[in-house]
């Protein structure tokens, strides 16, 4: 699977509650590998996709959240399902 495939995929909890879309993947770099450790989820708005997470002229809106990859139940290029308790952290 390519990164471009997974970008924009829907993210939902096991019980079907939609969290948003994949904005990015967080990763940790070790000696020889780059391991994916988190899922950056956000809304599908234009501003969010441009990476305007905290506009300087407005209140600090938290439009992006990182869900640790350990909370992911399944992932394919169209949809990522996370555990229900991942939603509670928002």
């Amino acid at each position, binding site marked *: 699977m390519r990164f471009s495939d997974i970008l924009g995929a829907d993210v939902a909890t096991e019980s079907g509650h939609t969290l948003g879309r994949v904005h990015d993947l967080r990763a940790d770099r070790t000696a020889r590998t780059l391991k994916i450790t988190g899922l950056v989820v956000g809304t599908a708005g234009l501003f969010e996709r*441009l*990476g*305007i997470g905290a506009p*300087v*002229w407005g209140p600090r809106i938290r439009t992006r959240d990182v869900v640790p990859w350990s909370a992911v139940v399944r992932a394919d290029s169209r949809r990522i399902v996370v555990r229900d308790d991942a939603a509670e952290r928002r």
Partner: protein
Amino acid sequence: MRKVFQIALGILAAIGGFVDIGDLVFNVEAGATLGYQLLWVIVVGVVGIIVYSEMCGRVAAVSNRPVFDAIRERLGFGVGFGALVASQIVNLMTLAAEVGGVALALELLSGLPYRVLIALGVAALAVVIWVAPFEWIERIFGYGGLALLVFAVAAIKLHPDWGAVATGLVPHGTSSDKLVYAYFTVGLLGAAMTPYEVYFYSSGVVEEGWTPKDLGLNRANAIIGYSLGGTLSLALMIGAAALYQPLGVEPAFIGTVALGAQVPLGTIGLLLTLVGILFAVGGAAIDTCFSGAYNMAQFFGWEWGKQRRPAGAPRFTLAWIVLLALALLVIMTGVDPVLVTEYAVIFSVVALPLTYIPILLVANDRAYMGRYVNGRAANAFGLLYLVVILLVSITAIPLMIVTHQGQG
């Protein structure tokens, strides 16, 4: 002492390099049509280009990324490609207009046929780019462009209505045709805030290896150079207003621009103006040509830069050669360079948000900029000009159509 000298030289080159064919055409036409009323727009435009290029210079010096690197990284491949195509179309139109302007100036100076001079002019530009080091190019064309200062002298000698000049420097409405007024406002802003200048500048910053330490110098150079260059634009409009507006003359030819200096100053005035036009527009042609090549190379990740030598950056080299050749073809068709200039300026205004917005975003991004991120002042100006640019971008084409390019 040497540093002061260097700074002064840089500023001189910036003044002479400020005026390009868009400024020549729009400032003179605006002066002839509306007199002194739009002088304030030049001031707004100069502040705008200072804000824009300071941000681009800072982004380039701090993050080591010129404009199109930042655009692709921040907005992604799709939007970046759209911005690239749009900017290349505008670059080509601008370059064609400048090549035409060079040929016209040469024709008036030499009497040789126009079409021959297009080819000669392009060949000369290509040779200069190939052979001369970067700094020499900026110096030669910058100092040569200073000859346009004769226009400032001419403007004073024409005894303009200084009261009207003062009023014109303050933003105000108009009793004449409001749509024509609006069209020229848009055109003047577009002529002042030329994107190719910003691409060129930011690429130069990266090529020269500027670091945050150079930022103070960068800012001073930009502010002083552009401000003084802006007075040349003011002189163009004042001269045109004093000479042409009372006569109701529409200077449709570049030659008529030079007349503005000949009337009060005689043959010397005419010659110096033509030489000034030749160097200012020729220098602008080189900047535009390089900008096109920089944009392509940076977007696609090719090797780029004059320092790499042509064989070290082959696709980059081919890009500017092809751009120059295409401009040659366009202007050889006999299309009026003044008309091409007007279209180029209007279209560049329409495309301006595509390259301004990403820079504003990147300049605010701490991950790229660290502590050199936009402060409150930079953001106040940055956002103010974002509004101005969006307004101007949306209204440009409708105004151009409705006013028949300012003819009313």
